[in-house]
């Protein structure tokens, strides 16, 4: 074998309860949940919705991140089994030590935190991930860790309490340092021997190449292949639309695609970086995007889904794009060896139409780092429910003011207002050169009517969308001129 060449494997292996587990040949579109329930007869993990929105199927997947184990809660219903290769899986059945309940489980029992119990395994696993990742979590952190878990019975109070109390049980539970050492050893071993995957079954295939070069070859060979990263969308094509996906090509093993790198003036986020990791990096530079981060889907979805996927998908209600548009983000597209870079706003042509050639994919997004020219950045998401909801309207504002408080540049973008995430050019024009005050904003609010003709659907009416789009501009003015109009500050955190 030549240096740099890696082997191809035709089966997957992952750690389950301290043992390496290799499933027998399976259909490449098999979901992890179906594998658990129908093949391993692990019936503790439940199907509540099969679309990653209820959390009853939550499992924990561990992998190595800079030498230590990272535990992530994921929705097994839309996670593909094949993507577990080289990782460790924990299900609700994994936690007990003999007859002794895990601290998370004991705390839930003692807090009377289950009623019908159907959602409970999912809560156990979300809390288990938190327990493993964090020595003590605040009420807010617990609540955020549970944003992807629906419970219809308890009203959540006892579950949140169990999240606070679970740490108290740690001392009575057998120390599992040894297990973790074994886990690290195995995962490290696996990581040192990277391999690509080619799974074929009944005429369907799943490929996980390890380099951009091999990815390019595969895309050329299978031009109709479905690219897969977090499967938060593709998973639903399988569970809900019953689509035939003859070729799935995963980005997850491609070297470099899981990297966040800083360049001169740019933050570069590669295609397979999870939304959670991406947002952590972005918020570190742009703290005003924190609320957007926390309201973006749920933690298990952010753990699985990727920023690249959100951008490439190009949904008019994708929540990352308005902020990226006003920040002047650019994307790099790759086809084979050829790459090209373009401003994000040039990527979206019309509803479900993108400047993307066959076989081409979004390799990375480049976000300018804050500098002297960075102005006042805010992003607002409006939805029926505060957390884990899809926007009715998402608005991002970024203006620069001169010394006289006049707008030198305005970048304003909205989601949910048109067939694509879109800048509000009339609104921007109305503000440019104007004093940053109520009168200019009133005119700019009016200008929005020339930018957008939103739709009515189950999330909001056209009228509401337009009214809120206008009001958010006013809110932005208020908040950048010293007035707090944030429920986020008063409500969640109180």
């Amino acid at each position, binding site marked *: 074998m030549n240096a740099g060449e890696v082997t191809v494997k035709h089966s997957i292996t992952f750690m389950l309860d301290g043992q390496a587990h290799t499933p027998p040949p399976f259909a490449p579109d098999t979901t992890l949940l179906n594998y658990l329930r129908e093949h391993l007869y692990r*019936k*503790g*993990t*439940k199907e*509540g*919705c*099969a*679309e990653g*929105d*209820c959390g*009853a199927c939550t499992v924990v997947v561990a992998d190595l991140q800079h030498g230590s184990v990272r535990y992530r809660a994921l929705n097994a219903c839309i996670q593909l089994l094949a993507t577990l290769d080289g990782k460790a899986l924990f299900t609700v*059945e994994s936690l007990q030590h003999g007859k002794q*309940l895990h601290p998370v*489980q004991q705390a*839930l*029992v*003692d807090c*009377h935190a*289950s*009623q*019908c*119990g*159907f*959602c409970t*395994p999912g809560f156990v696993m979300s809390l288990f991930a938190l327990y493993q990742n964090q020595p003590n979590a605040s009420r807010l952190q*617990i*609540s*955020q860790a*549970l*944003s992807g*878990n*629906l*419970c*219809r*019975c*308890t*009203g*959540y109070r*006892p*579950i*949140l309490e169990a999240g606070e109390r679970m740490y108290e049980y740690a001392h009575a539970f057998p120390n599992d340092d040894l297990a973790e050492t074994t886990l690290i050893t195995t995962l490290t071993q696996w990581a040192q021997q990277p391999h690509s995957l080619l799974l074929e079954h009944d005429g369907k295939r799943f490929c996980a190449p390890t380099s951009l070069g091999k990815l390019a070859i595969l895309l050329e060979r299978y031009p109709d292949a479905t690219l897969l990263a977090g499967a938060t969308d593709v998973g639903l094509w399988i569970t809900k639309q*019953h689509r035939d996906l003859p070729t799935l090509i995963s980005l997850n093993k491609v070297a470099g695609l899981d990297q966040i790198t800083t360049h001169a003036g740019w933050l570069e986020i590669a295609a397979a970086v999870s939304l959670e990791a991406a947002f952590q990096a972005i918020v570190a530079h742009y703290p005003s995007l924190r609320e957007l981060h926390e309201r973006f889907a749920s933690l298990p979805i952010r753990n699985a889904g990727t920023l690249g996927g959100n951008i490439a998908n190009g949904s008019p209600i994708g929540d990352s794009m308005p902020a990226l548009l006003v920040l002047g983000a650019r994307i790099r597209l790759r086809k084979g060896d050829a790459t090209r870079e373009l401003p994000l706003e040039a990527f979206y042509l019309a509803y479900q139409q993108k400047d993307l050639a066959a076989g081409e994919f979004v390799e990375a997004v480049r976000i300018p780092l804050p500098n002297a020219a960075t102005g006042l950045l805010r992003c607002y998401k*409006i939805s*029926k*429910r*505060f*957390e*884990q909801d899809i926007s009715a309207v998402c608005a991002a504002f970024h203006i620069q003011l001169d010394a006289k408080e006049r707008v030198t540049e305005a970048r304003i973008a909205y989601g949910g207002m048109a067939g694509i995430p879109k800048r509000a050019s009339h609104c921007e024009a109305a503000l440019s050169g104007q004093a940053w005050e109520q009168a200019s904003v009133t005119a700019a609010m009016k200008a929005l009517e020339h930018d957008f003709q939103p739709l009515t*659907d*189950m999330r909001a009416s056209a009228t*509401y969308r337009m009214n*809120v789009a206008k009001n958010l501009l006013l809110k932005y003015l*208020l908040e950048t001129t010293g*007035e707090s*109009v944030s*429920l986020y500050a*008063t*409500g*969640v955190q*109180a």
Partner: protein
Amino acid sequence: MSIGKPIKHDSAELHVTGAAHYTDDLPEPRDTLYAAIGISQQAHARLRSVNLDAVRQAAGVIAVITAADITGVNHLGGAMQDEPVFATDTVEYIGQAIFAVAATSVEAARRAARLAVIDYDPLPHNLDIQHAVEQQQFVLPSKHLQRGQPETALQQAPHRLSGHFQLGGQEHFYLEGMIAFALPREHGDVLIYSSTQHPHHDQKTLASVLGLTEKDIVLECRRMGGAFGGKESQPALFASIAALLALKTQRPVKLRLDRDDDITITGKRHCFDIHYEAGFNDAGLLQGVKLVYASRCGISADLSGPVNDRSMFHADNAYYLEHVDIVSHRCKTNSQSNTAFRGFGGPQGMMAIEYVLDDVARYLQCDPLAVRRANFYGTNGVRSQTHYGMEVEDNIIQRIVNELESSADYQQRRADIIAFNRNSPWLKKGMALTPVKFGISFTATFFNQAGALLHIYSDGSVQLNHGGLEMGQGLYTKVAQVVAEELQIPLSQIRCTATRTDKVPNASATAASSGSDLNGMAAQDAARTLKQRLTEFAASHYGVDAASIVFQDGQIHLGTAKTVSFAHLAHDAWINRISLSATGFYRTPKIHYDPQTMTGRPFYYFAYGAAVSEVIIDTLTGENRVVRVDILHDVGQSLNPALDIGQIEGGFIQGMGWLTTEQLWWDNSGRLRTHAPSTYKIPVAGDIPTQFTVKLLDNNANVEHTIYRSKAVGEPPLMLAMSVFFALRDAVASVGDYRCSPPLQAPATPEAILNAVQAVRDTMQDNA
């Protein structure tokens, strides 16, 4: 020894370890097939042709059935017999079952079900309540209930208001979707594992659909992953389809619904349109009220009759309505057949009167609590008869509201909120205190009965069975507590076994909050029978006076001389050929009700409670947070405070969801577009009040002789969430300096709130 203690749920450990078996978790025989339903894609149409060739030829398909395969009668057995299992000539909503398929895998069945070629001849469809009222499209005749001289009272009242508002429905969103698993047995019988609140109803329906008798059919349910009323009548459809396919193929057939299909097919809480007229005096005392309720029932009656009756009964909530006129229209619409949902029409009935009183308070420019208080039922026979002729004998609403007003610091906080709002132009706070009085019993008197079956084995361990279903509320735990108390044995010695139609026959639905009231009493009856039998045996066997025998903490004291363990006694009784099995039975006393005149005593007693909610809204977006909630609730003498508090908190949050984020939205084609958790938003952990205090009312034994003087707790707390809605309305009212009544609709989504804010601003401008 266990009554009144915060005992954990009997399945808690099974829940947290994933070891609790729900229907889909039961081991499957290896020849099991999986079913899927083919549903209508049109809201109203004649079926020109239904071509199922492609379905039959699809990979893995073993059987396809339509109405033609029904061996009995093609209807779902509701009182009106107005809903088929499978549509034949006409479909009436998007989601109506037309055929079903059984295949070798879930995926194969679901894929095949999509291959039907159906030629529809579209007919006009309607989902609008007012349009149905105008066209007199009803699933049941309208009802009318009147007391006093409302017309005269209205005319003579110093002040008069009228209004209209809309109240959305609610999807149950039980986490475990509908499922039925049917196994063929000899004689052409069938055993069905089903997630159902009413196995006997399903058994009766199946007997009719399959052309069998009730003895030929057994249903079993150990637990449901939530139900909330959604599994009271509607599982019958899925059990019928699974059983038809199982008998046709002679193989086990499991029908588990995909979530989207579940929400698309099944009925929900009824949406209501409410019109009112109210006359009142300067103090806000209602002198005459007229209410017109119109509800969206969907395509068939289902449980809409009793649901809407309960709305009428609860038009009073906790208030004495001296002169009142109530009309109830049960509208037929081309949508899911709406059904039971926690509160069973009561919440909608009560929202109406709360809305009226809120409007009255705004009109009089006074604290809504003062107006509510002025209208409460009296005590000792004063202002104490309901509009349906039942005496309110146990009124404690004043006490509850007084205690809560003080413990929640209502008056000071209200003043603080008004002050805050004066200085906060965009964020506005609101607060409301609302009461609950809820009638306990099935209004259909015959349902108020229950049975239990108790076995003591030769080692002293006990199996308990009763007709009630476990859906998370902790019924099995509470009933086991009753038996443990009666026999004085530890709970660990008792196993409550899965509810089965062949163990306790003819059991009522576990519904109407009545689970522990009915089944607790039935189990107590069985336990007392066995205890009596054991006492008599012990007296003769050990030669002691029966009166001196005491059961205590697992021991039987035989006078002062000798003590034996319960296991020892059980063993001796077995050896001496004493029957150690008994049934128990209970029927609720005192209740009677004439459905023609809508008068009588439909309820054994009332459960009470009150809540204060504080909210903050963003008047630029309508988004909001519930900041603080204080609840004081009456459960009588609690059987288990931990379980009761769980019901109160859970019910409250569920009610809050109904009135805030949970919106059902149909498009113009009549398709429900909020058919998954991605679009239908129930509360998550982050939505619960930052401060959330729930207390049980102290020292309040039920005046009626219920099981250990407890009170039912399943439904009443849901209505405590009315306080959230009226707090939101209060916050909106502050935009107009509390000088007009915001036209806030429910659910109070951000959009509904922003609309109301805008309406208040417009009104203020018009008045300026």
